[in-house]
């Protein structure tokens, strides 16, 4: 057993740099609390894990099936609010509220799909954009039940300590990403969904002509998208222990899109890379701001320009969205496919004959020794 595992590691992982990087990344995540005991990093990666589930579910729904959903926060917010309301009115604990609110998010996904079936392209995007904003308006106006703009606070925590919460979210993230990766794997011989999602995106009429019930698969995509986005929303609520209308905001929807497109759309790993680079970047810049505040610059005339620079840097670190925006523009101008896909193309090469991935250092394919040039 162990020997077979070692062998598959030696022949399946070591020669493919992308897989090696993925394994190193997950080993790092699972041993993080051993490496550092600073609360800051543990909390940062807890949120990054939750948002990864959210971003990857957007990639599955919008990237793979091409149903550009601009209101993905709907599923996130519906699950977040149902968790909070279930606790507030029924006194349920997280282990009960999370599954039920995920179910509610799935139902929401299916319901969203019915009007969405009639539309495509920018029309679909505008339709889906409207739903979370409408719900946010309703939530704010029903302030007796939902707390209005202040939301609902003092919810029960997911688990006692930060490290426990971190591991719950990390395991949920790993399992969700694995499931979604398998579901969208177009080369799989057991699961056909991946291939069908690609077919729907590329040409829906052709897919229908080949005997695929596209309506059923679109419903499936919306249900899966709702499921995982809902899971992220419910986990998020019980980690920050409060919920507010910001979970239904435009920013929430667009964050997912920015992460996915930054990392690389239509590739599950791109979404993971996007979140795990951009989210810590935003968090760390706030921390950098705290460090700069700690420094005291003497107020002699010589240092006056320095103080001006300090003010500007502090302003930047307080609003990390500027840094994020600039990074996103630069990335999209120079690598419109996304960062992770761009890097993968640099470090991996596909054999033209047998379609096996090889490391960039090889001149010949490792299986069929065809030339890679």
């Amino acid at each position, binding site marked *: 057993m162990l020997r077979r595992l070692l062998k598959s590691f030696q022949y399946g992982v070591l020669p493919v740099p992308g897989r090696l990087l993925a394994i190193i990344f997950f080993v790092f995540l699972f041993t993080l609390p051993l490496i550092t005991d600073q609360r800051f990093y543990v909390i940062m990666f807890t949120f990054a894990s939750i948002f990864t589930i959210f971003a990857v579910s957007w990639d599955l729904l919008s990237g793979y099936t091409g149903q550009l959903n601009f209101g993905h926060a709907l599923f996130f917010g519906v699950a977040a609010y149902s968790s909070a309301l279930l606790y507030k009115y029924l006194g349920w604990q997280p282990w009960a509220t999370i599954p039920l609110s995920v179910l509610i998010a799935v139902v929401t996904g299916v319901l969203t799909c019915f*009007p969405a079936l009639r539309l495509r*392209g*920018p029309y679909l995007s505008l*339709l889906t954009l*409207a739903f979370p904003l409408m719900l946010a*308006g309703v939530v704010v106006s029903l302030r007796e039940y939902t707390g209005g703009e202040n939301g609902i606070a003092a919810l029960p925590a997911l688990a006692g300590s930060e490290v426990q919460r971190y591991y719950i979210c990390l395991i949920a993230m790993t399992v969700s990403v694995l499931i979604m990766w398998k579901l969208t794997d177009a080369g799989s011989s057991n699961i056909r969904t991946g291939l069908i999602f690609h077919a729907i995106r590329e040409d829906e009429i052709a897919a229908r002509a080949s005997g695929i019930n596209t309506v059923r698969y679109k419903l499936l995509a919306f249900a899966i998208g709702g499921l995982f986005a809902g899971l992220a929303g419910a986990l998020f609520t019980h980690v920050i222990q409060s919920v507010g209308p910001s979970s239904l905001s435009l920013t929430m929807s667009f964050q997912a899109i920015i992460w996915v497109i930054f990392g690389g759309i239509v590739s599950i790993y791109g979404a993971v890379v996007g979140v795990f680079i951009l989210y810590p970047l935003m968090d760390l810049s706030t921390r950098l701001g705290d460090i700069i505040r700690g420094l005291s610059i003497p107020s002699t005339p010589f240092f006056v320009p320095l103080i001006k620079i300090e003010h500007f840097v502090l302003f930047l670190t307080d*609003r990390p969205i500027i840094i994020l925006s600039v990074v996103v523009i630069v990335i999209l101008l120079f690598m*419109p496919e996304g960062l992770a896909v761009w890097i993968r193309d640099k470090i991996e090469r596909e054999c033209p004959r047998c379609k096996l991935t090889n490391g960039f250092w090889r001149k010949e394919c490792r299986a069929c020794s065809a030339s890679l040039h």
Partner: protein
Amino acid sequence: MAAIVITYAVVNGGIYALLAIGFSLIFGVARLVNMAHTGFFMLAAFGLFYCTKKIGLGYIEAIAVTIVVVTLLGILVYRFIIDRVREHHAAVLIITIALVMIMESALLWRFGGETRGVPSLIGGYVDIAGVRILNQQLLTVGVAALAIIMVLLLLTKTKLGIAIRATAQDAEIAGLMGISASRILLVTMGLSVALAVVAGILLAPLEGVRPGMWGAPLVTVMVIVTLGGLGSIKGSIIGAFIIALVEQMASFLIPNGGYLTGTIILLAMVIVLIVRPAGLFGTMFEEEKL
């Protein structure tokens, strides 16, 4: 009360129409959803504020400077950033959102977050049917109407307008007729931004300026454009007044309606999309149908 509702609906409708025409124009010609559209509107409002309050220019000079500078900025942004990713629909959306975020942050850094007032061009008010209407509001309606008529004349009567409409209908055939698509796109973007700038200049004295002022109009403009039909100028104008009226009625008639205006106009958009996906006056291309 009906008179108040109608007055505000007409004033807001004029501003919305200017914004919606620009948004619709660039979508129709380039199939480009420009989320930074109301960002230019915000920049224009701040430009007017900066020129009149900080530099101390006269009103006419301030308006001229604002129109020229912001429109040029829009064209430069299009030429050097948006044009490069025009083929990737999702990338355009993300980049324009990122642009508007940068604009907001830059204004926040320079001016701070509070609402600032801008002096009216003309003071005083008139009484019409028992409603006190500011002269500035009358001016707004007049200028908006003038700008809309000029755009319509430009699009229907001039050679440039015909070229723009030809590119919108079929860029390839327009290219075969000797129309340079990239030049037309640049001109259309300039026109679209200029309309947003006029709207910003008109709104600034009425409601003041603040760095978050791009958000709510963006949603409204998207609703209007969908209602009227993406890419249809006539639809945008009519849609703007319908939505402005619905908004005012919602906030006057429904208790707690101030929070619900957004929900109600979005609901209107959803119904239109489901019943008639092309909007009231829009045309859908064959490849966009399902």
